């Protein structure tokens, strides 16, 4: 039904555009009257008046529809004091499933009348939606039509409409972000009512699985100390550092090479090739790490007489580092290229060699930008999940041995949320607490990094 209405609105708007345009063309041709704007602006004007109000109503109506139906249907059940919110929801979804013929299993007799009621209410709502929208279209069109005949400044109105549309898109993006952050925040607050923040931040024992098997009879004191997130913070930091120790030297030097030494042709080929590394799906890196690099390290370790577990922080970190190389190298290349040629020439003209010039003039000048790019890469490393899930294991070890299994914040979020979970126990809510911690870390790093990069840009542009 919605689709039909949407199609109708689009067709109407389009014909309004054509109609408005030709109407103005004809009028000015026949009567010689001069209009303020070009004919097509009157077309756009009509189309906007035809489409936008209708679309807005369609949008909100469709959202509230189900809500309305629910109120009507559940009115009868509300009187029963035994039914709480969850049960009511369950009943409603059963009724709905029966009505839409999606119910599996034997249909409970008692609900059949309700499902019929559901259908009829729905039909009435849909029909009235169609009627309302059509009448709105007619109403606003009559208004708009009278306006264009009055020779309004259509061009300016269209400009306003465009501005509003763009603004709404931006607003949607902002509100979505806000919504995500708020939901993270609320769930974490729930978590922190059952587990103290202090224990979460300083505890060194992470075993949320044990919290789950316990029932309410166990004292909360026991629940608290299985949510010590320090091993996760450490693991995240540790693996990110391993990754950076791979990505920074390789990325930095290849960036410098591309920017300063390679021929333009070579750079044009090699830069996209390196950037492919960032485009490979992380799962692919994950099994590369788990199936190739991990075992490879284990074999080397065995030959050296070291005890390497096949899931190790080292394998995950190294592969993650490879993935991040392009973040460092491409940004380094860009930043170095942004250092003005005149500085290089100034140095060369004094008789400095190329590498002296790079070391003493170009790199110091580019340093803020390079630091910024490294910080961005770090925040990428901290947020990376798949590689760690597959290659570093799940054990929340607090260890500085890179050859042992390790785990990160993101990995634990995944493990916690895999499978069906109810959202009301501390174990699940812990995921939100971890999420907001992670969000907080990366946000701070990103803000710092972007600021540094911005300062750098301002200096040279």
């Amino acid at each position: 039904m919605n689709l039909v209405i949407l199609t109708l609105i689009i067709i109407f708007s389009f014909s309004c555009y054509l109609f408005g345009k030709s109407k103005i063309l004809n009028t000015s041709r026949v009567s010689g009257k001069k209009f303020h704007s070009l004919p097509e602006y009157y077309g756009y004007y009509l189309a906007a008046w035809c489409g936008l109000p209708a679309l807005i109503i369609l949008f909100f109506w469709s959202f509230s529809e189900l809500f309305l139906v629910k109120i009507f249907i559940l009115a009868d059940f509300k009187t029963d004091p035994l039914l709480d919110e969850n049960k009511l929801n369950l009943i409603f979804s059963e009724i709905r499933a029966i009505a839409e013929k999606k119910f599996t299993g034997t249909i409970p007799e008692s609900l059949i009348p309700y499902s019929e009621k559901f259908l009829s209410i729905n039909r009435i709502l849909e029909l009235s939606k169609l009627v309302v929208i059509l009448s709105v279209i007619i109403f606003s069109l009559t208004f708009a039509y009278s306006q264009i005949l009055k020779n309004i400044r259509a061009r300016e109105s269209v400009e306003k409409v465009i501005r509003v549309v763009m603004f709404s898109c931006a607003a949607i993006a902002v509100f979505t972000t806000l919504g995500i952050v708020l939901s993270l925040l609320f769930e974490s607050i729930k978590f922190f009512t059952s587990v103290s923040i202090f224990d979460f931040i300083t505890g060194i024992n992470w075993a949320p699985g044990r919290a789950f098997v316990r029932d309410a009879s166990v004292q909360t004191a026991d629940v608290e100390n299985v949510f010590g997130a320090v091993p996760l913070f450490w693991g995240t930091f540790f693996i990110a550092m391993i990754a950076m120790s791979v990505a920074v030297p390789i990325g930095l030097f290849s960036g410098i090479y591309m920017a300063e030494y390679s021929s333009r042709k070579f750079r044009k080929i090699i830069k996209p090739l390196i950037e492919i590394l960032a485009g490979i799906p992380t799962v692919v890196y994950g099994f590369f790490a788990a199936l190739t690099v991990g075992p490879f390290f284990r074999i080397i370790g065995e030959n050296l007489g070291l005890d390497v577990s096949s899931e190790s922080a080292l394998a995950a970190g190294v592969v993650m580092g490879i993935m991040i190389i392009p973040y460092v190298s491409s940004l380094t290349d860009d930043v170095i290229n942004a250092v003005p040629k005149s500085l290089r020439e100034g140095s060369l003209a004094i008789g400095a060699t190329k590498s002296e010039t790079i070391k003493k003039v170009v790199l110091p000048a580019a340093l803020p930008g390079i630091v910024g790019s490294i910080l961005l890469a770090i925040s990428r490393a901290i947020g990376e999940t798949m590689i760690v899930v597959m290659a570093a294991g799940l054990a929340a070890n607090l260890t500085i041995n890179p050859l042992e299994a390790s785990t990160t914040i993101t990995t634990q979020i995944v493990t916690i949320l895999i499978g069906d979970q109810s959202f009301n126990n501390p174990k699940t809510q812990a995921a939100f607490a971890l999420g907001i911690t992670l969000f907080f870390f990366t946000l701070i790093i990103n803000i710092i990094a972007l600021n540094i990069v911005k300062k750098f840009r301002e200096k040279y542009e």
Partner: protein
Amino acid sequence: MNNDKIKISTRNLNVYYGAKQALFNINLDLMEKKVTALIGPSGCGKSTFIRCLNRMNDVIDICKVDGSIKVDGSEINEKNVDVNKIRERIGMVFQKPNPFPKSIYDNIAYGPRIHGLAESQNVLDEIVENSLKKSALWEEVKDRLNQPGTSLSGGQQQRLCIARAISINPEVILMDEPCSALDPIATAKIEELIDELKKSYTIVIVTHSMSQAARVSQNTGFFHLGKLMEFNLTEKIFKNPDNKMTQDYITGRFG
């Protein structure tokens, strides 16, 4: 100009940017401890020419320099010549001041450090002070040597770049429109400075200002479309040029 010593001489100098030829058969002698001005309409190849003299055109991939450039009689336009040594002897000041994003002190100390000219901190301090004095900047910056070079005004920055060029005691200083970004007062200061510097250095200056060329130089070369149209004593060029085009350009009837 007969009893003067020739510092740099070019013979049959041809320069190409890719397939496009920018200079045609330039034969020109630069006299030691004299100021030579190069004038000519935009795009005629003045910058290209002086960049040949310290091999700065090597930096541009597509640029090819053919012919002979001799400094004190020895060829520098050859593959096995050490470019860095050439540039140590022949310094350059650019159109736009380009101080390094370092302190004023480090800007000047950069060259001496690279070439190992100062064995001790004292000697380095002395070099910095002398260079700044020679470029008439010392009084203005002596209390703020640790501030970034980029914090100076445009005219001061240009004098800083001149100080940077003379810090390694070159024999020749090439200046490519050193005053084009400066106001008349800063320009006057630099012109005074050039007058002073010519006692110890051979100077080549590219300029778009006829009056500047007339004021500071002893010899003047007029370039047009990549060719050296006329080269003579400045006085002669400005009073009574041999070439009709030179006459037109100088009097502003052209270009």
